[in-house]
């Protein structure tokens, strides 16, 4: 399944290299548990558009290389682990949390990263 994550170039490169960090914190902030949010590439985008998130982060952090979309090919079996009552696939948001698919995602991250793309947004 193809999943999208809107972010900045610097963060996308870090995610590719190290895997999603659920305790990632922005400059000046303390680490908190936030999971890893992605969207089905075909939508629906009921929670906002990934491009919008990428542009928003790039605006708030202008030194991070601009907005990009991280395009991930994730095995269906791992996406299934992230489906909960709160996050049915029909709503287009695939939310990886600890206990809901994140551990499984990290376990195969090197494989996912090898086929991932970083798509620039203008």
């Amino acid at each position, binding site marked *: 399944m193809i999943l999208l994550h809107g972010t900045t170039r610097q963060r996308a490169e870090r995610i590719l290299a190290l895997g999603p960090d659920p305790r990632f914190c922005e400059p000046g902030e303390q680490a*908190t548990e*936030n999971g890893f949010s992605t969207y089905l590439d075909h939508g629906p985008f009921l*929670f*906002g558009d990934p491009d919008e998130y990428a542009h*928003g982060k790039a605006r708030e952090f202008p030194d991070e290389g601009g907005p990009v979309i991280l395009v991930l090919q994730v095995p269906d079996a791992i996406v299934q682990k992230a489906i909960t009552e*709160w*996050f*049915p696939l029909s*709503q287009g948001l695939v*939310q990886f949390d600890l206990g809901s698919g994140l551990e499984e995602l990290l376990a195969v991250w090197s494989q996912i990263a090898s086929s991932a793309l970083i798509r620039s947004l203008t």
Partner: protein
Amino acid sequence: MIHSNIFADRVQVVFRPTERGVVGLVDDLLGLCRLYQLRINFRDDRCCVRHLGADAQESFEIPVPKSVFRAALARTAAICNEQHPESVTPYRGEGTIAVLPPVSSCSEKGVAPSTCYVSFINTPRDQHFEMRFSTISAGDRNRFTVLLRDKRTVTVFGHALKYVENAANTTDCGSYGILSRTGGGEVLVALFRASEVIGVFSGDMTDPDAPGLAGPSTSAV
């Protein structure tokens, strides 16, 4: 205190997972604006809810995962932008959202869409949501019945109910005003402090805090 408990019960019902997921949660939460004004904060892994205007110690905790609350805020932002393009960012904003009456009451005469005011912050560090009733139009010479906390009721004729913010004092929880058309304009014919109001009803009044008896079908606030 009884009303506080019923408020807590209603909010907890909204936060129970359903097959409608986070989208359903937000729909139900916005539906509450016809009855309640509330503030929700997520801090130190705890999601706390309180009635606007209530003391902080009257807040209660909702057992909801942080990712669910953050997704609910993202959905709120998306609805704001659907109704008013580019009005908010995914991270913060404020605006009004038109809320349709519940499906169960659509067939009832006189139940109009209402608008509610929302403000939110949704960053990795801060998550906050505030929601309050804004306006409802109910037709000319509609009867509004206002139920006050001291058990008195007041009946006022008007065409719309509007939330009136106290701009001079942001800690004040504002007032509900009832508007009436006169000539080419409209005038405020009654004003009630929100902190003194339990509910405002268009049409016949039923108890908003009696599940199964009343509900948003006839209540306006």
